[in-house]
């Protein structure tokens, strides 16, 4: 190799664009995570309590500055409904910012579980290739051949609608992705020179697998996790939308879209559209972050 000056792909892409996207993704993710922590407490109304004001439309754009200054100076008797209220009188804004507590926590825990399980199984399947692990891979193939949404819906329907069951169902449907990614990486890492060197130094196979192969095989799964969290949020919302998710009045984006859907025909778009935008932005944020991470990884 004499082409030491050949440059990697990352240098060939316009640097500013990559960083801009990465920054945007990161900002969205940080906001969503922050809302998952404080969201339920900072809204102007209690997200789980109805108010007598039913189906109040959001203020028009021209009203916002006036309302805002009035709100700041404290001359309003009740805080404004920034995104209106829905047919039951819930304040949409308070619920939109409270929802990450439900959506993100379900997505994160489910993802964490499937990541752990998937990486563990992937390591075994990639490191020890025998009939048992091949059988496991075929089972995981079968699982992956069903649409994620259908599998999750069936699982929740069978086990009952509870947050725990949703988490378990999501973890279950996402595990095969991590198994396959990790297995592929383990298979390419375990034949590398440093693994053979570790064997020559007198490491046991177990120690080689855990200390040498595993840490070098995690990256694809971790990158995938960032993308999958976004989709897990979408899936959580989707389950609620079809009635297989969390129960009302838990603030949850999918549920909000679903309950608001009946009003759309009457021209009351706000109870559904705002949570819809929130989901889109969140999924977008995680996906962009995942892509940016992946590009950085590929470049290295």
């Amino acid at each position, binding site marked *: 190799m*004499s*082409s*030491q*000056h050949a440059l990697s792909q990352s*240098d060939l892409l316009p640097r500013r664009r990559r960083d801009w996207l990465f920054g945007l993704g990161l900002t969205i993710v940080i906001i969503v995570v922050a809302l998952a922590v404080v969201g339920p407490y900072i809204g102007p109304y209690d997200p789980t309590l109805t108010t007598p004001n039913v189906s109040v439309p959001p203020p028009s754009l021209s009203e916002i500055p006036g309302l805002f200054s009035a709100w700041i100076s404290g001359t309003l008797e009740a805080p404004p409904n920034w995104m209106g209220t829905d047919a039951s009188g819930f304040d949409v804004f308070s619920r939109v910012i409270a929802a990450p507590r439900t959506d993100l926590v379900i997505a994160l825990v489910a993802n964490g579980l499937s990541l752990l399980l998937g990486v563990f199984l992937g390591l075994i399947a990639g490191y020890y290739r025998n009939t048992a692990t091949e059988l496991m891979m075929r089972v995981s193939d079968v699982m992956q051949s069903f649409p994620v949404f259908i599998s999750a819906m069936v699982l929740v329907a069978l086990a009952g609608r509870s947050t725990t069951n949703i988490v378990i169902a999501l973890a279950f449907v996402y595990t095969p992705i991590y198994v396959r990614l990790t297995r592929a990486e383990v298979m390419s890492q375990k034949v*590398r020179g440093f693994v053979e060197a570790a064997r020559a*130094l007198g*490491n*046991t196979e177990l120690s080689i697998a855990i200390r040498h192969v595993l*840490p070098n095989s995690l990256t694809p799964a971790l990158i995938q996790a960032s993308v999958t969290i976004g989709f897990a949020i979408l899936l959580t919302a989707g389950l609620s939308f079809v009635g297989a998710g969390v129960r009302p009045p838990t603030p949850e984006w999918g549920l909000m879209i679903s309950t608001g859907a009946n009003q759309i025909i009457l021209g009351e778009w706000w109870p559904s559209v705002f949570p819809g935008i929130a989901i889109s932005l969140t999924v977008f944020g995680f996906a962009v972050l995942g892509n940016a991470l992946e590009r950085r990884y590929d470049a290295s």
Partner: protein
Amino acid sequence: MTRLEAAALQASSMIEPTTARTVLSVENLVVGYPVDGRMIKPVDGLSFKVREREVVGLIGDAGSGKSTAALALLGLARAPGKILGGKVEFDGRDLLKLPDAEIRAIRGRDIGIIVQNPRSSLNPMLRIGKQIGYAYQAHNAASGQQLRRKAIDMLRMVGINDPERRADSYAHELSGGMAQRALIAMALSSKPKLLIADEPTSGLDVTIQAQFLDEMWNTVQQTGSAILLITQELGTLANYCDRVLVLHEGRIVEDAPVREFFANPQHPYSQQILKLQRERGSSLGLELPEGGVKPLLQTRDLRKTFAVQHTKKTIQAVDKVSLSIGRGETLGLVGESGSGKTTVGRCLLRLLEPTSGSVVFDGEDLVKLPPNDMRRYRSKLQIVFQDPFDSLNPRWTIRRILCEPLDLHSNLSAADKNKRAEELIDLVDLDRTLLDRKPRGLGAGALQRINIARALACNPEFIVLDEPTSVLSPRARVGLIELLVRLQKELGISYLFISHDLTTVRYLCHKVSVMYLGQIVETGTVEQVFSRPQHPYSQALLSAHLFPDPTNRRVDKVIPAALEGEIPSPIDLPIGCYLASRCPHVVEACRSTPQTLEPVDTGQEVRCWRAAAGEITAFKGAHA
């Protein structure tokens, strides 16, 4: 034109080098890459000339700017690099000032280029003949049948057997050597005045490498082109080049006729890479005590077979190999790729389980040891792998890498381990500040030293060196060989040095065994095997090797015929001698009689009954 006529012609043109016309004249060429806002200049003020019919060698370390320079000569730079200045005068015109259309016409027609990695340079979707035809058509008016005939002629000229059939093959159906020749055919199809060859033989086997360079040299002699041959191999320089350019930090630091360069290098870098040639092993101190040394490791009838998937057949990778390595001794194991030499190394350490046979180390048969006992033995037997970039855990610091063997085999305290890591890094002449870095970003030479340091951590008695110098640049290679010799002298370690590079084997080894298709075909001292090889295969291997000696150039002499045909498949091995189908000395009995290693008059052992009977004509190695 025969090789000798060509050589004579070459010699006559060398008598008056000044009268030969200058084909290419490069002045003050600068190529820069923007990196983090700064301009890095891999080529920085390059100036040289290439004359008509001249073969000019360009040597330099990895990163010295060789490939960047080669592209820049065609007015090209890899994005986002740019040619920042200078002049590339070809045939009286400055290429850098020509409009795109004109320079495109010159590329490929007047300047041919052959790059590394032949197979990826061929279009996998096009038949070879078509590709050569297109290359020709780009610059010449021709059509259909004419193109095909031209392509077949070119393939025949570069020495491809059965060119009609090969013209209809796809790239993946060709061997590496053949693909490389097809590229030459393409590059030479429009009789360029200059051929730029960028490490054209990297990755090819020794025998193919020599054949290829012979073909290139011959063809160019016929077409009258000049060659700029970029290489990292001193052997290639010495055997084929008339003049040597040394590229160092983007600049030519030495420009000398080849003999003068080897005899009296001027620049410190040239002196460094030629150090071993100049000292000729004398100061390396390879003398062993009189009367031989006590054996440390012996194998007996070591066999390793691999099952072929989905069949009941097996591949015989190692076939009844018996070796003996004494304390403080180096045994060289040489052979082409696929000869099983690497498998032998792995079997000695049980990184691969031998199918049968024994490996006796210090009185203990390692093959019979249960896994736990074997692990304990590993502190005494170590291995250094071929690819230094791949053999260190990329996530660990050098300190942790060096401490790993101590964690496994010693009860040292953390502080003592640290101290040992520092000792080790000193021992291999690296800076202690490296300890807290990760392998990434270090050069091949430094990484290979770290590999050696790690192997030394627990004071081993025996190290398998599996082609440790093959990916190193010339200077790092010299440094590593010196280090290995010094370590052996200081620590009394035994080495098994696996290599296809006979030049390095000659510097480093006391004894040498030649492998062919899993068998040892000849074994003896380096002196015996290199100066009087007896087995026809050893003879072929030695005659194909490019020794860095410009006074005994391959292009100036008659080369004994190379072995015919290809290596037989290790799945269906012949009953008799494995070489019988390719051997120039073959008689009927060879095909049916399995061969054994027999001692011959010159002292070594040879697996050839005709050599043992003294029936094979002596071969002058003349290189030991």
